[in-house]
């Protein structure tokens, strides 16, 4: 079985027709399902949050072993399907960049709550950067999380009254006061 690093690629990835968007509806739906699952799986394993459609280096877009690459149209079709399912969002109107939610925002919010409880931070204050990259985050899924995704999760929690977001001392950092 082919691997990308430690990641095991599914069998269909080695079958050339899967790299062409299929015209027959039933076949296309099955094809899209397979690619959606692969993209989510891969992004989750590698902690990838943003996919650029024009990115030639994104490993899933081509398979050199069979000399096939996904057309732009195909890439857009698969990612659009993920967006329709609520597992991705377009970051721009021209649909060139896509935010992949291999955890939904709701799931990230719960992960933040668990993180706070596990570290006894119920009444503390932390900067967003600290949540993302601080010592406590090491070994958790929060470590290295995309900032946009984290802010969305925090805002969701803010609306539920679990915390308050405020501007920090530096222009580009924000802080969070937990009140869980």
């Amino acid at each position, binding site marked *: 079985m082919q691997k990308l690093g430690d990641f095991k690629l599914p069998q269909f990835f*080695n079958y*050339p027709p899967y790299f062409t968007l299929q015209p027959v509806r039933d076949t296309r739906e099955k094809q899209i399902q397979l690619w959606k699952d692969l993209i989510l799986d891969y992004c989750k394993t590698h902690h990838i949050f943003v996919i650029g459609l024009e990115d030639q280096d994104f490993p899933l877009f081509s398979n050199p072993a069979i000399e096939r*690459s996904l057309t732009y149209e195909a890439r857009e079709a698969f990612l659009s399907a993920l967006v329709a399912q609520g597992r991705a969002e377009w970051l721009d109107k021209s649909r060139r960049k896509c935010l992949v939610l291999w955890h939904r925002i709701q799931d990230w919010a719960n992960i933040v709550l668990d993180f706070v409880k596990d570290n006894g931070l119920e009444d503390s204050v932390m900067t967003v950067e600290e949540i993302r990259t601080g010592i406590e985050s090491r070994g958790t899924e929060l470590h290295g999380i995309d900032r946009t995704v984290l802010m969305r999760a925090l805002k969701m929690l803010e609306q539920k009254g679990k915390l308050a977001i405020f501007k920090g001392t530096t222009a580009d950092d924000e802080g969070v006061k937990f009140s869980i």
Partner: protein
Amino acid sequence: MRRRPGIGGLQTAAAARDQYRQLGENVAKIRTDLMKEQLTTFRTQLEDFARKHKNDIRKNPAFRSQFHNMCTKVGVDPLASNKGFWAELLGIGDFYYELGVQIVDICLATRPHNGGLINLQELCSLLRQRRKSDREAVSEDDCLRAISKLKVLGNGYEVISIGKRKLVRSVPTELNKDHNEILELAQAKGFVTVVEVERRLSWTTGRAIDAFDTLLDEGLAMIDDGHKDGVRRYWFPCVSSISTPVGADG
């Protein structure tokens, strides 16, 4: 017996003919009786054999196949019913029933990929992977027998021969001669092109495209526009195995 002329001679000849005839009938009867007896003996011996070699029959596919052949010659069908001597002795009815269920399962699971047509070889391979923990090995012969029992249930399962391969069909799709010819061509590389079909089968473009369109609609074919030569290829999952890697020149 000396022939004597005259009526007496004729009567003697008639009597002689009668006696010969009776002898002939007796011989025939003896032969039939002998055969019946031999057959019964043979059946008994077959049963003894089955009892003694129960384990081998269960475990060894080649042995099992030979055993089936012997049974056929004697007019015994161990799979005729799930009850009765043979089924109880060998539990073979259960074996094939179970195989049938697994085959149906595999066909359903692979249908999204191959459209309901699967290579017999691949089916057996997937079957063996599934049954890894079982002590009973499975051969293509076993698969064919199990599938023939499925047919009796009217599930639409059938084995068709295309070129050198056998394909198991699990959907009611009827393939016509044109479709079969394309599938046969596709066995070489797993795909064909329109030009190839036109050239090798001497078809018009229209006839080729018609056949391809049907095969695409039935989910038996997929298009591939990704080759650098820009020529569209039609791939047939049922003739290649998803577990064997496809070469780069495909």
